[in-house]
């Protein structure tokens, strides 16, 4: 019997929505292999959140808990101890999770310790032990088959739907842990970027600015449009490297991969590395003063204009549209 173990993350005593696409990937893998789905909750005290997740079901048979004081704050060292033990205890045949920065940190370490192959940032499950993923900044799609009694994966959030609660409640089981250790590491601080906006990778609408915005304060006009649309703010590497906006807003091969319903690229030329992070978007709008900018080649709608002119105009048009929509 194959057993798929998906590692979850929690935030403020709740399941982190970032983990939901990984659950979907786990469901697909369990379905492809006719196996059962287990979800693993890791932390210092996770009983309460585990029972919430168990009620939500998510098609899982068991919610496994791994509890130890040294598992919070999370470190790759201690978490890999817990995950390795969980895989061995339940006899998992595969393990994985959403390709968050935490999972990308932890799961290759787990794979090495268990001598297992791993495929990172998969965009699809194609069989009981095969996956699809992109390489070379999205310029090629490969299908990979993994051999061995245990395999691992991380799932790209933009390519899997968020799992929704449903099905029979799962049963909670506790994994006995021994020898959990941070290996002498210390987490000195963990600063989350405070934002009232939806997370970049979860937003339906993303408005991104590039080098052409010239300086950080000019992003204010994009923020107004973003908030009016209820979206998330993004940026190209040129803008984050220049310090116009924080690094975690970067969309692209070396930043976040997003696939919103609407992506508005403002003053972004469209280097291949940026396209790799947003070309899965349903509708792409490009606004750039340079008609030759490569971004226009993948945009559904292009506007050759200076942002200084176009964005304020667009903002008031959106405002009017929203007003009319509400009224009638």
């Amino acid at each position: 019997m194959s057993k798929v173990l998906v590692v979850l993350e929690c935030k403020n005593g709740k399941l982190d929505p970032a983990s939901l696409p990984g659950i979907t990937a786990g469901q697909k893998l369990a379905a492809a292999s006719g196996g059962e789905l287990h979800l693993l909750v890791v932390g210092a005290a996770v009983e309460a959140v585990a029972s919430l997740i168990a009620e939500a079901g998510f098609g899982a048979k068991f919610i496994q808990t791994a509890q130890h004081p040294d598992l919070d704050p999370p470190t790759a060292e201690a978490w890999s101890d817990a995950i390795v033990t969980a895989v061995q205890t339940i006899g998992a045949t595969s393990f994985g999770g959403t390709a968050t920065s935490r999972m990308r940190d932890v799961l290759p370490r787990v794979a090495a310790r268990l001598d297992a192959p791993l495929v990172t940032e998969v965009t699809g499950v194609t069989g009981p032990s095969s996956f699809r993923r992109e390489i070379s900044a999205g310029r090629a799609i490969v299908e990979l088959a993994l051999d061995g009694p245990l395999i691992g994966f991380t799932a790209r959030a933009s390519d899997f739907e968020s799992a929704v609660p449903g099905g029979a409640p799962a049963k909670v089981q506790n994994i006995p842990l021994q020898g959990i250790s941070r290996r002498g590491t210390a987490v000195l601080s963990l600063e989350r970027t405070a934002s009232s906006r939806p997370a970049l990778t979860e937003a339906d609408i993303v408005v991104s600015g590039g080098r052409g915005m010239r300086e950080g304060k000019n992003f204010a006009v994009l923020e107004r449009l973003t908030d009016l649309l209820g979206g998330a703010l993004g940026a190209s590497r040129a803008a984050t490297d220049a310090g116009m906006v924080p690094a975690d807003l970067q969309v692209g091969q070396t930043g976040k991969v997003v696939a919103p319903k609407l992506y508005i690229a403002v003053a972004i030329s469209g280097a291949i590395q940026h396209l790799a992070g947003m070309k899965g978007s349903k509708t792409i709008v490009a606004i750039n003063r340079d008609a030759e900018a490569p971004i226009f080649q993948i945009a559904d709608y292009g506007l050759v204009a200076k942002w200084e002119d176009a964005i304020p105009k667009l903002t008031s048009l959106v405002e009017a549209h929203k007003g009319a929509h509400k009224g009638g």
Partner: protein
Amino acid sequence: MRILVTVKRIPDPDEHLKFSSRPSGAESSSRPTGAEASAGGAIDRSSVKWVANAFDEYAVETALRLAEHVGGKDRLAEVVVVSVCPAAARQHLTQFLAMGADRGVLVDADDTAMDSQTVARLIAAVFVQEQCDLLIAGKLSQDSEGNEVAQRVAGLLDMPQATFAASLRWDRADKSVTVVCEGDDGVETKRVPLPAVVSCDLRIVLPQSVKNGATAETHAYQEGPRLASLRGITMAKRKPVAVQTPASLGVQVTSRVRTVGVQAPPRRPSGQILETPEQLIEKLVREAKVL
């Protein structure tokens, strides 16, 4: 202090990929850098230009900034670069020696015929054999984008790790490094005792990202990885490169990740260029129905 830096050659990421319908070359690869065989097509790499992976340039720059005492004559660490590749394809290794690394280790093997666990085993074996204190790696290679090897080495050698480093401070008295890591929704500062593994993100090459306690705190480097000097290029030819093989390191080469098929991504239908913001709104509301 000895710093080992992993470096890899990749096809020039600015060149177009060529696809061939006929499978050719090696059968399996998790780091698809060769000619991938497949039922669904293959990438034709017969005429590609090989270059060094950009993140590895950042990793070497990081190591050099840790090792050198700007304004002093002493050197605080030895920088060793290691690459797994055919011995004849070592140009990138020479480039990093020219940039300032002290010496190289080349693991002579077909890097396209092994999975990342094998690569990690080879790197781990070199780390132990060379008695290193710190492994610095780029966070990923721009071709396969696996982002696995650094963390795997840490796991194999049971060492602490700090991934996606945006800045790094070496505390020599404490024998530790304090690393600011960029995550999805913020930054984490982590102190790790040596020996340890660090993987580098883009911002590690900003002017003040790396501190070693000897170079003045206020010293600002030029942004980005340094270019090789003429003297560096001349010196590089004289720097030692030890050649190893998987057998000499006691590592069995395996690949449990097989490439089944390679395809070009579907093309997006060509879009429309609009004249005014009004037209754009109209399209978004009536045609795309996203507003």
